[in-house]
């Protein structure tokens, strides 16, 4: 078991090391090596998964702990934890990673840094597996930074483009903000418990080693890391910009796996979150969900729409953690990983085709990602179209899909929470309106891209379906959105009971004196809220799709007239609520201004008077010392004095050595006489 875990962890690392050093020289630029290693990882994960299905034990858990090093009385322990959540996450990561690798062989074929790209993908897979397998906060933190690094490298992969270089920097820096919070949180726990292991953490919390206030603050600090990595409000700004990276990277890192790491961390830490912390988490999730969905409505870049959609769906998962229905949030994470990766790869396929068409026509100005330039691609790219349609249906929450089940479960959880605490009704409101917007913008995307009249006939004629390396992953990922994969052996498309919900059991909160309902109670209430949630989510989805159909397909309602009437709202949404501008104006610019003033102080005052003053004092002092002490005294008196004494005595003493033996005899005689005299005295 543990050996499987170690192999899954180290294989991609091995391939990274080989690829980064000798990748270029390998046959086929080394892509087979990366694909091979990640495919083996996938097979190992799959065998773990099958074994899990045969065991069918919700409480299955294997853990191995090593001592990393001793520091005085402190044993720093790290280790590997494999339980059902780990196995499911491993399968998701390795599956999406494998498909993205295969897809990339075609998508990145013409890139000059092909083997470096695969090396970075391997590095990412290694780091992500590390996060999943770690049984301690320190390990998670290390791999957390490593996925941040690989994300940085891959967003800025086309660093010749200034926008890509800036986006990678932005992603790295924004993530740092969250990570500092996370580090403080880890240290808050570590300073009292003296161990990073989850096991010790749970034990310490359940024994009441922390006051509720400390626990709230520490929990929120840790959650700050998740806010950064999972792109929650207000640190979501990096994710849409991260779309500057290659599209397969967006599918792997910025849709399916890395951004889910924050949510995964929140799942692991759920038992130690206090009610206060959970309420804040729920509101952050709900605000992110609705807010990103509103922005996605007006975006024209196909990848930007999907990026905001990802932010919004991550908001759902965080919301699920906040209201205590966190297993449903995890369910949504897994289903979302499949269909959102599928959507990104489909959009990549469309962009690829558009790009090639433009390239053929020698048009380097038009934007291959702008949906307004597309249209009518349905017949030209049937495989991409049907895959994308199916993923869209899943994301919009229509029955018979996995997305319906998981989103419905999350909404039911939210509804249950709101019905128990009516003053938190906003959470449900936000949740359902986000579902409405989701259905709307996704079908807007479909209608704009695949239906209607093509923008330019010439481009349209040059569009071709993508090669088989690209379409196969699309088919696999979109078919995984079918509900049965997640509910087997339950064939009812409206119920999410199945292996997943059996094997992923929620843990009770460990916070002493915890007042919120326990996991069991939440499940009961969700059961009651299920039907209402089902009805509501279906109707909002239908409403959203209906609006999209009327506006963008049948054009019964003119988009322009709506735009004219809701100009203010449209501008707000189109400009992403001016979050970037607000942050720039109230955070970055003042910061730069302060830095400038400090720099002036630093340069004109500190450096000029203090540092230079020291310099001048030292200079004068050394001059004086050099002159008076060193030159006048030491050199002139002591050193020269020795010389002079030696010279003088030499000139005198050399007279004695005459070479005449009789002179020596006289000296001997005188010496003997002196000795006699001294003896006599």
């Amino acid at each position, binding site marked *: 078991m543990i050996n499987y875990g170690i192999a899954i962890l180290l294989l991609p690392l091995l391939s990274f090391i080989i690829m980064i050093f000798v990748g270029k020289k390998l046959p086929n630029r080394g892509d087979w090596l990366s694909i091979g290693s990640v495919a083996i990882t996938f097979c190992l994960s799959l065998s773990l998964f099958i074994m899990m299905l045969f065991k069918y034990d919700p409480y299955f858990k294997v853990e191995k702990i090593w001592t990393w090093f001793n520091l005085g009385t402190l044993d720093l322990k790290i280790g590997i934890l494999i339980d059902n959540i780990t196995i499911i996450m491993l399968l998701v990561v390795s599956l999406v990673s494998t498909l993205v690798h295969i897809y990339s062989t075609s998508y990145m074929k013409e890139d000059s840094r092909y083997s470096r790209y695969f090396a970075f993908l391997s590095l990412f897979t290694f780091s992500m597996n590390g996060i999943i397998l770690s049984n301690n906060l320190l390990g998670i933190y290390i791999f957390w930074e490593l996925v941040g690094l690989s994300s940085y490298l891959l967003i800025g992969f086309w660093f010749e483009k200034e926008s890509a270089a800036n986006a990678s920097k932005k992603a790295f820096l924004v993530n740092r903000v969250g990570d500092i919070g996370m580090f403080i949180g880890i240290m808050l726990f570590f300073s009292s418990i003296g161990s990073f292991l989850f096991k010790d953490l749970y034990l310490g919390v359940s024994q009441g080693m922390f006051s509720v206030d400390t626990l709230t603050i520490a929990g929120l600090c840790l959650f700050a890391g998740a806010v950064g990595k999972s792109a929650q409000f207000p640190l979501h700004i990096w994710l849409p910009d991260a779309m500057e990276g290659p599209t397969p990277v967006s599918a792997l890192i910025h849709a399916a796996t890395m951004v889910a790491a924050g949510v995964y961390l929140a799942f692991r830490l759920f038992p130690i979150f206090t009610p206060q912390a959970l309420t804040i988490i729920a509101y952050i999730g709900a605000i992110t969900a609705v807010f990103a969905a509103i922005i996605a409505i007006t975006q024209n870049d196909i990848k930007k729409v999907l990026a905001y959609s990802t932010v919004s769906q991550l908001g759902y998962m965080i919301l699920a953690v906040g209201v205590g229905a966190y297993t449903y949030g995890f369910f949504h994470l897994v289903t979302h990983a499949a269909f959102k990766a599928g959507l990104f790869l489909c959009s990549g396929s469309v962009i690829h085709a558009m790009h090639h068409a433009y390239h053929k026509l020698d048009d380097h100005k038009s934007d291959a990602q702008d949906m307004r330039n597309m249209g009518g691609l349905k017949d030209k790219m049937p495989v991409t179209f049907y895959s994308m349609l199916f993923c869209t249906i899943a994301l919009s929450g229509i029955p018979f899909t996995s997305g319906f089940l998981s989103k419905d479960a999350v909404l039911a959880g939210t509804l249950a929470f709101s019905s128990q605490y009516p003053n938190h009704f906003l959470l449900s409101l936000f949740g359902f309106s986000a579902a409405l917007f989701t259905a709307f913008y996704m079908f807007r995307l479909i209608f704009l891209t695949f239906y209607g009249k093509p923008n330019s006939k010439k481009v349209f004629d040059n569009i071709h379906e993508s090669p088989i390396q690209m379409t196969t992953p699309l088919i696999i990922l979109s078919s995984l959105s079918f509900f049965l994969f997640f509910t087997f052996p339950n064939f009812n498309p409206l119920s999410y009971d199945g292996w997943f919900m059996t094997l992923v059991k929620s843990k009770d909160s460990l916070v002493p004196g915890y007042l919120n309902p326990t996991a069991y109670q939440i499940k009961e209430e969700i059961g009651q809220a299920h039907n209402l949630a089902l009805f509501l989510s279906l109707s909002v989805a239908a409403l959203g799709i209906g609006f999209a159909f009327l506006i963008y397909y049948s054009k019964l309602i003119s988009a322009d007239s709506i735009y004219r009437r809701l100009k203010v709202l449209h501008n707000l949404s189109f400009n992403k609520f001016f979050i970037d501008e607000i942050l720039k104006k109230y955070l970055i610019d003042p910061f730069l201004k302060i830095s400038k003033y400090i720099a002036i102080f630093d340069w004109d005052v500190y450096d000029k008077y203090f540092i230079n003053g020291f310099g001048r004092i030292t200079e004068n002092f050394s001059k004086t010392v050099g002159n008076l002490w060193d030159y006048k005294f030491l050199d002139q008196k002591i050193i020269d004095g020795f010389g002079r004494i030696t010279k003088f005595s030499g000139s005198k003493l050399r007279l004695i050595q005459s*070479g*005449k*033996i*009789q002179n020596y*005899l*006289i000296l001997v*005689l005188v010496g003997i006489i002196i000795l006699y005299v001294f003896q006599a005295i």
Partner: protein
Amino acid sequence: MDLNSYLIISAILFSLGLFGVITRRNGVAVLMSIELILNAANINFIAFSRYSGMDFSGHIFSLFVIILAAAEAAVALAIILNIFNNFGSINIDDANKMSQ
């Protein structure tokens, strides 16, 4: 006659010899002065022998010294003769080279 008289005679002889060794430049004269020093030592030997125990070790020593002095004189005169042959003088200050 007591011991002091002999010792005084011997000291005078020794001083004269030493004076000769230091001051004379003539090689033969230096040799003769060395003979004086040796004889001063001989007188001391005999005198101490006479005035301490009644054995003849002092006399024996003196005899050895006389024989040694004779041998030394022979070797030294040969050296001086060679010096004269080589340098054309028996002034010992002139003989300041290991070879010509």
